[in-house]
């Protein structure tokens, strides 16, 4: 069944859905009491939206520009640190930088703006370091990109992974302690009050990524992904466009790093390692390489599964089942098996390279009852076909058995099994045409 909605209806639907979601998140965070198990839903939405942003930024590189880059965790690290360093309140500096005499930077942007602009200044004071984090990451990515983007496929992956690891070690360097607090935890910096903050920021950033992908530059990126040689022959400057894609992707990775810092309330360089990059890559692959919708869905599924649905596997009791092997770490085993199943049966990810569309969604909903109703009969038909095949197989087997028995009997009676073909001794030569 084909359903097409006009453009206006679609935008109204989209705006309504987004507004409804935002109201749900906002009220949910206020109304659900911290002890309730449903609080986990809000936590998953917060963390999921942050991961959705970084996954979308990675998809811009891997899925849309064809650059297999694994530097995302490193860029998130810079984003997280940049945000945290500039928002620690002056009064908390001595406690946070206790090994570095209160640190080198003794002020907070949030406090500075709060003093003169009030509540508005508070949020501005959060947005400025966040934006600064993104810009700093973009500059660093630009510099790293100059040597690294001349490499292709696996080599690019190794080089970016290496840079990410270097960045991690660099931030833990003791000499930089007055700024980065060395290998100690950064904490007490300003965080958001309601879950709507990261959701809103992520949504905005993902919307910008989508706009970019659908612009003429996005088309050029996809051309590079599909065929570098042809793209170059069509006048697309490979290096320039790869650099643009890399810098923009890194900018959003920096923003998501800042959001992650707020979500976690304390940060340390150690968790921003390759495992984190692989988690993000996993989200991209599960969602579908080349689909932003897929990355968003993948991010929420991944966070929900690892933070919420499968938690019970570690605690010893899950869906009413309790077993002795369900102890810390078992969740990861189950998770790995689930991922293997997804990759085996949905090898192109949940969404493939398609994006969400209201048309497909509504026609899917409309066809759902029919599909559900048809399901038992389809199953029956499938079973019948299987039975038939089995019967045919059995019949063929018994026929073969019979033939074999009769052949044995003929052989025993001395009869020849095959009649040899008559052999003729004339050879015919065909003349070559036109000779």
């Amino acid at each position, binding site marked *: 069944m084909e359903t097409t909605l006009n453009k206006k209806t679609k935008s109204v639907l989209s705006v309504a859905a987004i507004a409804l979601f935002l109201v749900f998140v906002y009220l949910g965070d206020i109304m659900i009491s911290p002890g309730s198990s449903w609080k986990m839903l809000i936590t998953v939405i917060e963390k999921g939206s942050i991961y959705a942003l970084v996954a979308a930024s990675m998809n811009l590189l891997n899925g849309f520009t064809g650059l297999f880059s694994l530097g995302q965790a490193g860029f998130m690290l810079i984003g997280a640190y940049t945000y945290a360093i500039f928002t620690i309140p002056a009064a908390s500096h001595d406690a946070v930088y206790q090994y570095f005499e209160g640190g080198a930077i003794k002020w907070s942007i949030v406090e500075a703006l709060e003093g003169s602009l009030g509540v508005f200044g508070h949020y501005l004071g959060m947005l400025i370091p966040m934006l600064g984090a993104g810009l700093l990451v973009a500059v660093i990515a630009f510099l790293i990109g100059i040597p690294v983007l001349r490499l292709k496929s696996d080599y690019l992956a190794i080089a970016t992974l290496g840079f990410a690891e270097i960045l991690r070690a660099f931030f833990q360097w003791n000499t930089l302690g007055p700024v980065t607090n060395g290998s100690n935890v950064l904490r007490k910096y300003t965080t958001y009050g309601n879950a709507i903050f990261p959701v809103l920021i992520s949504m905005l950033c993902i919307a910008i990524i989508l*706009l970019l992908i659908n612009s003429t530059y996005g088309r050029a990126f996809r*051309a590079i992904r*599909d065929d570098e040689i042809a793209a170059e022959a069509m006048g697309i400057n490979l290096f320039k466009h790869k650099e643009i894609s890399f810098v923009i992707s890194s900018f959003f990775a920096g923003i998501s790093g800042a959001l992650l810092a707020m979500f976690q309330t304390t940060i340390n360089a150690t968790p921003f390692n390759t495992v984190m990059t692989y988690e993000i890559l996993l989200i991209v692959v599960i969602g579908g390489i080349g689909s932003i919708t897929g990355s968003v869905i993948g991010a929420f599924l991944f966070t929900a599964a690892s933070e919420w649905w499968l938690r019970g596997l570690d605690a010893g009791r899950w869906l009413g089942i309790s077993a002795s092997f369900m102890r810390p770490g078992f969740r990861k085993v189950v998770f790995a098996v689930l991922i293997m199943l997804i990759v085996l049966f949905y090898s192109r990810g949940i969404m493939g390279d398609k994006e969400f569309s209201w048309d497909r969604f509504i026609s899917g909903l409309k066809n759902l009852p029919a599909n559900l109703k048809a399901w038992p009969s389809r199953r029956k038909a499938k079973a019948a076909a299987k039975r038939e095949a089995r019967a045919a197989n059995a019949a063929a087997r018994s026929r073969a058995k019979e033939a074999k028995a009769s052949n044995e009997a003929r052989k025993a009676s001395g009869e020849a099994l095959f009649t040899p073909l008559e052999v003729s001794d004339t050879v015919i030569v065909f003349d070559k045409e036109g000779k």
Partner: protein
Amino acid sequence: MDNREVVLRLSDITMQFGGVVAVDNLNLVVHKNEIVGLIGPNGAGKTTAFNCITGVYEPTNGSVEINGKVVIENHPQGKMKEAYKGRNAGKYTKAITMLPDKVTKLGVARTFQNIRLFKGMTVLENVMVAMHMNQTESVFGATFRSKKARTEEAAMRAEAEELLRKVELFENRNDLATSLPYGKQRHLEIARALATHPSILLLDEPAAGMNPQESDDLMKFIGRIRDEFDLSILMIEHHMQVIMGICEHIYVLNYGGQIADGTPAEIQANPAVIEAYLGGDE
């Protein structure tokens, strides 16, 4: 002899890979609105010559002139100085290189021997990609849909649709490029090259894998776009029927070297060409 404007001139182009001279001292001229053929047995160096023109390879020696301006020039340098086996070693002194995208901007468009369309994109998008280089809006303007970006995008779309109408692919504009039948993919590749506003079009075996009917259509198609888009065309082709039917001038390569050039009639009568293709008397 021919007083038409010269669009493309190769002078003493030599391409040596290690000890192998793939193209040996090729001199070739394409005039305005001329269709020139480049033929030769397999491995004669035809595609390598294309790659030298389009900046994919740096020629070892010689120069490429586009619309009267030298855009690529090289001479044996470094290790190649001693290993060089070609001729005219001292003739060129400059080293001018150019990346393929710059060459395309100068008005040289090409197609490929094995079709290279953008697989994940529709027919219309394939053509619009080729127009990307002419748009002037920055990435920020394009992302946030500035007025300029919107007008440029609309113009691009209109032009691409117009172009697809001309090559009879308009009905297929929203299909995936790879879902087209083979012959139409060839047409699309040519249309995509035309979208870069070339003054010369390089076609690398456009009739490869086509039956006589299809190659006949292609021949007419090439003639038509030459007139309609005011182009010069340099084509590599193995189908003699196509080459002899459409080209005004033919260059013949064998083992990298240029063995003959002339009109189709002259080439057909040339003993060196016959020997290269059919083998001489033992």
